[in-house]
């Protein structure tokens, strides 16, 4: 039931679904990325369960990775601003 002259609600619904799926895929890709990085850093030899030291290392790994990404992004933004166009 498209209103005359207005956006088709079915199309916008589809767009919304596609955007949600894209976001989900992006999130999943991020998780894989983190896995690659943090598995090497934090797991030496797999034990019979995930011990507290490894869990702590994984939590730190995720947060430090995010901090690093943010600080590098800010640094680049600064450089671009100072450089001008």
């Amino acid at each position, binding site marked *: 039931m498209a209103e005359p002259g207005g956006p088709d609600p079915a199309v916008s619904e589809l767009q919304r679904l596609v955007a949600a799926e894209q976001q989900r895929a992006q999130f*999943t890709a991020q998780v894989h990325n983190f896995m690659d990085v*943090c*598995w090497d850093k934090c797991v030496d030899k797999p034990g019979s369960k995930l011990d507290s030291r490894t869990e702590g290392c994984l939590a730190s790994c995720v*947060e430090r990775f*995010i901090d690093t990404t943010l600080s590098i992004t800010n640094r680049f933004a600064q450089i671009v601003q100072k450089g001008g166009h």
Partner: protein
Amino acid sequence: MLRACAVRTISLLSMRGEVIVPHRASCWQTREGRSRRRAVCPEPGMEASSPAGLAATDPQLQHFIEVETQKQRFQQLVHQMTELCWEKCMDKPGPKLDSRAETCFVNCVERFIDTSQFILNRLEQTQKSKSAFSESLSD
């Protein structure tokens, strides 16, 4: 022990968000004589008895493709896990796979799944607290 490990590996497939979508086989061209070289797509009322009946509406073919795709993804996962766990668990290859290495492989797969789940939860937590996170990482 390895069998239980395989069951967990299959659950890892779904956890990785790999959605198996039935692949729509495109209508194939028949090459029976030059006069019939055209794309043959079954119409709604058409029987699947002709050679060109193997088309998009064949549920058997679709199911087969689904199964094969899943098998391929599973094999891919097994290769990836073998590569990872070989580095962690294999020191020096001996004359046979000793029980210690076998236990380590089982632990390796399970810890991998636990780690993935942990990171997933952690990321969700961090996303909720820091809203700027998703903006910067989406670039």
